[in-house]
């Protein structure tokens, strides 16, 4: 079983005057995982960011602000730019000059937007006042007269009549509400306001101006239209600016982010007056190449010292200094198992000293998924979807899902064809006797050749909803036993590596014996209780062996786990029975598919007795329904089979040996997406 890659610790010491070059060299190795320095350790404190960082941060802020304003997103298509080119542009002040150019246009755009918003408010107020036959200049300019104008929800005409020395203009429509303008003596203003407030009054600001409201409204509408035209042309300018600068913005953002990241490295290492010291983890097989790389780039100004290669025994970790205790985990999985690391990472990052479960997940997750689906008809879309996903997506989440669909689909095809012999819920071989026996042979009226039936288990495949149910349940239990036993064995191997054989036997050996004993005991008991086999001979021996093994296992395990060893016994049986879901879910899918097939062929197409093809319209409707219903089963398959297959890995398998809690290996390296290295630098990615 694969363990994470062996890691070595090195110390890199160099002269502070060349720290910038040193950081470039660290990045070029793409293998150094620095141990964060703690101020005070070794009498040295952490360093400060490189001087260029503050300017770079300022520029990055400007670039990101411009990106947002111009609508340049991560999905905007842009060309790649050579690193030297973008560096020169940034150094020559392109960020600042672009900002000036962009801000100039954006200021005009914002002013226009603000002006249009103001005019729209004016327009709205004028529209309200249209109903009042008073010119605009008459609303203001009085000494002893107050004017209140606004909208009302109910008609205040009657109430306003009680106001002495006042003139009211009310326009009201029952459904739309209305407008009221009241001219009243200054001292009566509060009284008027209080009367209006009872009628849902909301005051509006009377726009300044002269002449009839209608003229002012026409004038305002014209102004709004003019400004909108101007805004449109400015937006075109913004669009042109986006097209002109988007490549520069995305490339400079990436370059500046990389510069800042590199500039912050001194914050993670020890820096003194004249030198710097960096402790770092390196994959064991890369120590020499890393040393050679650093020495070739920095000459005598760097010294790399090999400190240790950490073993898997926990004593080594306990003896180590606090900051060197945890070793980063670099998974060592093949090209396929790598895609399943994501599933493991959903639980935790493996510890340096333990088996990486990804390889087991790689094997069992698609296997269980395929077993639960177990149908050629559903398998083919899974394979196509998975292959397409693997081809187009680079996101790790989607890749993980696509991998499961692809390999799960292959298993589903294998099980569906050879083991279950069915497609879309119908067996290939057999007679047409709905609802339980609906077959492709019967439906299409053909007779499949002998060799075809010969390659299937039992001549026609195993029926999920018939006489083979007991066999399938037993099979799922056997699969569970193997899966769980593998988990226990991995647990034993983990503890053996971490603490030695004796400790491993005491901690995990007892559980293996107990589990094996439980399996033997349960087998003997089922023989006696369900199959009515007399309690003698082999069954008797098995029963005794089972009891002895369980007792021995409990005795050993209880020394480390105490009472839990006994309490876990029913849990073990539960764990094994949990695998019956492999069949239960397969059956539920098959049951749904059978019901849908009967609805389509038996009830809609009228073939409940024998196959007589209906008229074309009925046939088309039936086939459309057939496709839709099976699409529903297929979609449910992704959810139920996928989640349950994952659960069996997470809950049943991993809890037997996987502890997690490791630190992910994150070497100093950069990933360039929008900037490219020029040919001379291509081999020395920095």
């Amino acid at each position, binding site marked *: 079983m694969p363990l994470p890659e062996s890691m070595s610790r090195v110390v890199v010491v160099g002269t502070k005057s060349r720290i910038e070059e040193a950081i470039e060299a660290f990045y070029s190795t793409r293998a150094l995982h620095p141990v964060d320095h703690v101020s005070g350790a070794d009498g040295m404190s952490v360093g400060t960011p490189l001087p260029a960082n503050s300017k770079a941060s300022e520029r990055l802020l400007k670039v990101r602000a411009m990106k947002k304003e111009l609508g340049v997103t991560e999905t905007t298509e842009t060309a790649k730019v050579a690193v030297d080119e973008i560096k020169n542009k940034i150094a020559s002040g392109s960020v600042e000059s672009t900002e000036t150019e962009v801000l100039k246009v954006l200021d005009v755009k914002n002013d226009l937007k603000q002006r249009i918003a103001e005019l729209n408010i004016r327009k709205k107020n004028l529209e309200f006042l249209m109903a009042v036959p008073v010119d605009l200049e008459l609303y203001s300019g009085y000494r002893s007269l107050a004017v209140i104008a606004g909208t009302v929800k109910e008609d205040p005409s009657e109430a306003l009549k009680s106001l002495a020395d006042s003139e009211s203009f009310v326009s009201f429509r029952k459904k739309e509400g209305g407008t009221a303008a009241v001219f009243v003596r200054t001292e009566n203003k509060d009284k008027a306001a209080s009367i209006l407030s009872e009628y849902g009054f909301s005051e509006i600001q009377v726009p300044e101006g002269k002449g009839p409201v209608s003229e002012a409204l026409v004038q305002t509408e014209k102004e709004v239209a003019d400004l909108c035209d101007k805004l449109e042309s400015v937006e075109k300018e913004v669009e042109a600016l986006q097209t002109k600068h988007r490549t520069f913005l995305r490339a400079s953002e990436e370059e500046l982010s990389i510069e800042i990241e590199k500039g912050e490295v001194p914050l993670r290492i020890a820096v003194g007056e004249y030198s710097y010291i960096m402790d770092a983890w390196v994959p064991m097989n890369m120590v020499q190449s890393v040393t050679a790389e650093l020495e070739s780039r920095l000459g005598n100004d760097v010294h790399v010292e090999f400190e240790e290669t950490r073993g898997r025994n926990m004593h080594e970790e306990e003896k180590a200094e606090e900051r060197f205790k945890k070793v980063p985990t670099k998974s060592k999985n093949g090209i396929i198992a790598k895609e399943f690391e994501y599933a493991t990472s959903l*639980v*935790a990052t493996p510890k340096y000293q333990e088996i990486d479960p990804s390889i087991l997940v790689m094997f069992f997750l698609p296997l269980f998924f395929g077993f639960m689906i177990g149908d050629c008809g559903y398998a083919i879309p899974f394979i196509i979807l998975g292959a397409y996903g693997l081809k187009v997506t680079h996101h790790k989440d989607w890749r993980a899902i696509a991998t499961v669909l692809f390999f799960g689909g292959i298993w589903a095809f294998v099980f569906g064809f050879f083991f279950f012999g069915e497609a879309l819920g119908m067996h290939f071989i057999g007679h047409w006797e709905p609802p339980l026996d609906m077959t492709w042979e019967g439906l299409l009226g053909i007779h499949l050749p002998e060799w075809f039936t010969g390659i299937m288990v039992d001549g026609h495949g195993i029926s999920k909803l018939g006489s083979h*149910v007991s066999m399938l349940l037993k099979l799922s239990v056997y699969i569970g036993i193997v899966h769980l036993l593998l988990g226990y064995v991995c647990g034993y191997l983990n503890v053996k590596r971490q603490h030695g054989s004796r400790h491993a036997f005491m901690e995990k050996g007892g559980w293996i014996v107990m589990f094996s004993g439980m399996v033997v005991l349960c087998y003997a008991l089922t023989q006696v209780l369900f199959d009515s086999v007399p309690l003698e001979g082999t069954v008797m021996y098995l029963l005794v062996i089972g009891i002895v093994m369980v007792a021995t296992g409990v005795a050993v395990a209880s020394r480390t786990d105490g009472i839990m060893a006994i309490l876990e016994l029913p849990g073990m049986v*539960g764990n094994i029975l*949990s695998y019956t879901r492999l069949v239960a879910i397969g059956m539920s899918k098959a049951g749904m598919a059978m019901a849908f097939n009967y609805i389509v062929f038996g009830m809609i197409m009228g073939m409940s007795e024998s196959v007589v093809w209906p008229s074309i319209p009925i046939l088309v409707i039936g086939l459309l329904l057939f496709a839709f219903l099976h699409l529903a089963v297929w979609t449910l398959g992704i959810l139920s089979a996928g*989640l349950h297959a*994952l*659960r069996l890995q997470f809950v049943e398998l991993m809890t037997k040996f996987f502890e997690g809690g490791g630190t992910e290996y994150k070497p100093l390296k950069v990933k360039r997406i929008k900037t490219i290295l020029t040919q001379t630098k291509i081999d020395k990615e920095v």
Partner: protein
Amino acid sequence: MAMEGDVGSGLIAIGAGLAVGLTGLGAGMGEKDVGAAAVGAITENPGIFGKAMIFMVIPETIVIFGLVIAIIAIFAM
């Protein structure tokens, strides 16, 4: 299959239905609390999705047992 037309078959069918229905109810009640807490915890820290899922699916085993009992009742009795 014990699906004749007698009272025994009817009782078996009722028993199978009760096995699935009641365990489904129980699992649902269990998952209700765990699920709510798990969603809250994942919102705080998406990194614990796997662990949250483990807790989430523990009560659901019971309904699988119910389904297995129902299958045995219908097909194997």
